[in-house]
């Protein structure tokens, strides 16, 4: 088990290096230059060139990459020349905000989807199954910007039950902050709902079909024990795998929701950085996302291994 984890962690390193190289190359060759963005449209070309030279924009790309990589791993993430803010606190702060939002969405939706999926699987092909499958699938595919806007207008503007912005006033406690996040979290919940519920259902159906389950039921074991004992555990295997894989989509969803609600999370930060060519923020942010993604996949695999002894042995 530990060997599995260690091996995966080690493998993350070359992957991350490649990711960083890829992102660095993409960002550095984006059109539109840093000097111009800082000085604005009214500076002369000479002034822009001077600033660019000062910022070291003209040095060969390998040199810049190595310099940047060295700084990055030692924790020196530099200061963005565009916003005059230090990159690390900005990225980490944004990350914290996104984790709060995503966490809230996941904490609610994972148990809910699993519950719905298992129920659907237990009542396979019945009306309830069909109903749950269709409705969860339908909600899932509604793009976040659509559900977000509709919810916003209904609940924040017309009914005024929820606040219009996602950011609580400074210094608010956790409960207040979560209250402000209810509205933005719902579109995220919707998009995760369908796939998690479906995988839970699939897992449930698979397990129920297994001979030993039928034996257990025939032998007279109470259904509930059967369910909690075996079904859930095994339904979790594909479900957890899917959740791990869904993190990528969650991040995409965060981009849209954060843009829509103006919430200062990592998604919005990255989109803004892409638009203003704030390459330092872009590179740092994407690497953070990549690390998170790999860690979440790793965690998902570990949980699956814990749940399913066969997997453990194979590892």
């Amino acid at each position, binding site marked *: 088990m530990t060997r599995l984890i260690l091996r995966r962690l080690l493998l993350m390193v070359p992957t991350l290096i490649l990711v960083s190289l890829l*992102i660095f190359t*993409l960002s550095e060759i984006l059109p539109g230059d840093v000097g111009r963005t800082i000085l604005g449209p009214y500076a002369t070309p000479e002034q822009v060139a001077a600033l660019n030279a000062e910022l070291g924009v003209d040095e060969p790309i390998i040199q810049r990459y190595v310099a940047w990589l060295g700084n990055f791993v030692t924790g020196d993430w530099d200061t963005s020349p565009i916003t005059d803010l230090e990159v690390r606190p900005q990225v980490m702060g944004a990350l914290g905000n996104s984790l709060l939002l995503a966490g809230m969405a996941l904490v609610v939706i994972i148990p809910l989807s699993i519950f719905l999926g298992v129920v659907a699987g237990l009542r396979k092909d019945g009306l309830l199954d069909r109903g749950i499958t269709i409705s969860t699938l339908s909600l899932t595919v509604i793009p976040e910007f659509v559900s977000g806007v*509709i919810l916003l207008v209904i609940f924040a503007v017309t009914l005024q039950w929820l606040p219009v912005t996602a950011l609580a006033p400074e210094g608010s406690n956790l409960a207040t902050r979560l209250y402000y996040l209810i509205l933005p979290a719902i579109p995220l919940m919707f998009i995760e709902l369908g796939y998690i519920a479906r995988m839970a259902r699939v897992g449930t159906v698979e397990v129920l079909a297994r001979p030993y389950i039928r034996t257990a039921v025939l032998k007279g074991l109470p259904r509930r024990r059967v369910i909690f004992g075996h079904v859930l555990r095994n339904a979790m295997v594909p479900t957890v795998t899917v959740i791990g894989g869904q993190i990528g989509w969650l991040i995409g969803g965060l981009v849209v929701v954060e843009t829509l609600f103006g919430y200062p999370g990592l*998604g919005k930060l990255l989109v803004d950085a*892409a638009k203003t060519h704030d390459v330092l923020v872009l590179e740092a942010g994407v690497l953070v996302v990549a690390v998170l993604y790999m860690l979440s996949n790793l965690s998902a695999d570990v949980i699956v291994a814990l749940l399913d002894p066969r997997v453990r042995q194979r590892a």
Partner: protein
Amino acid sequence: MAEPVAAGRTAAEIQSNADAALEQRRQRRYLVHALLRSPTFMIGTSSVVLWILMALFSTWFTQSPFDVNPMDTLQAPSAAHWLGTDDLGRDVLARTLAGARSVLIVAPLATLLALLMGTTIGLITGFYRGITDEVIMRLVDVLLALPVVITSILILSLLGQSVAIVIVVIGVLFTPLVSRTVRSAVLREREREYVMASRLRGERSWFVMAREILPNITAPIIVEGTVRLGYAVFTAATLSFLGFGLQPPSPDWGLTIASERLFVQLAWWTVIFPAIALASLVVGVNLITDGLGRVFSK
């Protein structure tokens, strides 16, 4: 699924191949019938087919999706405009129906690209294993670690915003997942008898991959393809919503929702109908996936 068919050589094998081919045709007919009887599959297919027809022919019977009408902006649904007008006075019904066009070009082509590249990679890595497998799958992991939306935005900012580039970007970014699925399928198949038989016979690797294994993994590829298609529609819409991709005055749904959401309080119809349209298409694709999955798993 039935026993796999091997592309064999000896006369005896040819005879058994003929029998097997017959068996396969029977299997396929059964499959088709099963699909036709599956409500999810049929509903999904109807939805997608309907939108394909709309994309092709809607302008034959609707008003023009491009005629601006500065005096009649943001009008509620009425007899003149069944679904109302948008911020430039254009007919929402016409634009909603025509909006299918861009999605139905971008998403399937991107998916096709992903399937082509992903299947090739999956076949190679699954079959050869060893170093090739390790190296390529590492690269695939790298691509997977990149958040799709952010990477797309970067590339689109860099290379410009044509439809072709959007297709290529989505196709490339979806390739890893396809290759993973194909690789798993290949890994299962390569241990089967017919593959070993084929290799013992001395057949060349690409032959084994292309003519032996590939025909027998079409089912998971098709399912994966429809799954990817659903995601592709979603991604394309999200990209145009964020402002990367199509240009006005395209009636593309993502673009429309992005530009009309300013008016959602006064003119909900400008946003709701494209939204429902988009949802129905994606749901349709997903129902197809669902139906296929159920039928293939029996």
